[in-house]
């Protein structure tokens, strides 16, 4: 089902992930978060931006375990744990944050 972002219609797959990563803009995350009834804070954006940088460098969405470790390294140990990340993204930091960031579903995620 396509989503409406700033007057544009963007294609998504059956699980709600953006079909074309290049169509991403911050508004995508805003629209998706609104559907989930979630208010995006700076802390959410830290993770979303981190995921986009990770994808840019490695061409994959990291597995949640790898994400947790990498966030801890980049943003500090207090943020590199699943309690913190699940607090921000209750549907799972891997799935939900990657979806907001316009990335494909993490490899190995069911």
């Amino acid at each position, binding site marked *: 089902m396509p989503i409406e972002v700033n007057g544009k219609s963007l294609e998504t797959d059956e699980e709600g992930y953006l079909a074309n990563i290049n169509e991403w803009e911050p508004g995508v995350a805003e629209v998706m978060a609104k559907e989930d009834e979630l208010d995006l804070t700076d802390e959410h954006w830290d993770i979303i931006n981190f995921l986009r940088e990770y994808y840019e*460098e*490695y*061409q*994959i969405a*990291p*597995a949640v*375990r*790898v994400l947790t*470790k*990498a966030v*801890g*390294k980049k943003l500090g140990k207090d943020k*590199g744990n699943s309690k913190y990340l699940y607090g921000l993204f209750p549907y799972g930091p891997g799935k939900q944050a990657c979806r907001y960031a316009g990335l494909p579903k993490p*490899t*190995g995620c069911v």
Partner: protein
Amino acid sequence: MSDIKKFMYLNRRAPYGTIYAWESLEVVLIGAAFDQEVSLMFTDDGVYQLIKGSDTSESDMKNFMPTYRTLGDYGCRHMYVDKASLEARGLTQDDLIEVAWEDFETEEEVDNIVEVVDAEQVATLLAESEVVFSF
């Protein structure tokens, strides 16, 4: 999981043209969740999978070479490259990417887990592995 086995992923084919290299990489990424002792071996045209500076922009295929550099984060400890296969293609270790490994808890670090090995070591390493996936 207490039963840790030595897994070896043997890569023998060129990165593009067939799906084998990408499939192998995906299995390694997925398998990392199971906490096994994982190593990769590159022989024959498989050595081309680790060439640095690859560019697929004109081939209409996703360039997945950057993904190899994240394997250290996925728990892969060794990436072996067959020396004879490299030499037969006019390549040396300088032509290959570097992959860092780090243990976030102990802060133990290895700058580069890509290692060129000779035929005898290849045979020994394969014989020592408990599970070998060949791609």
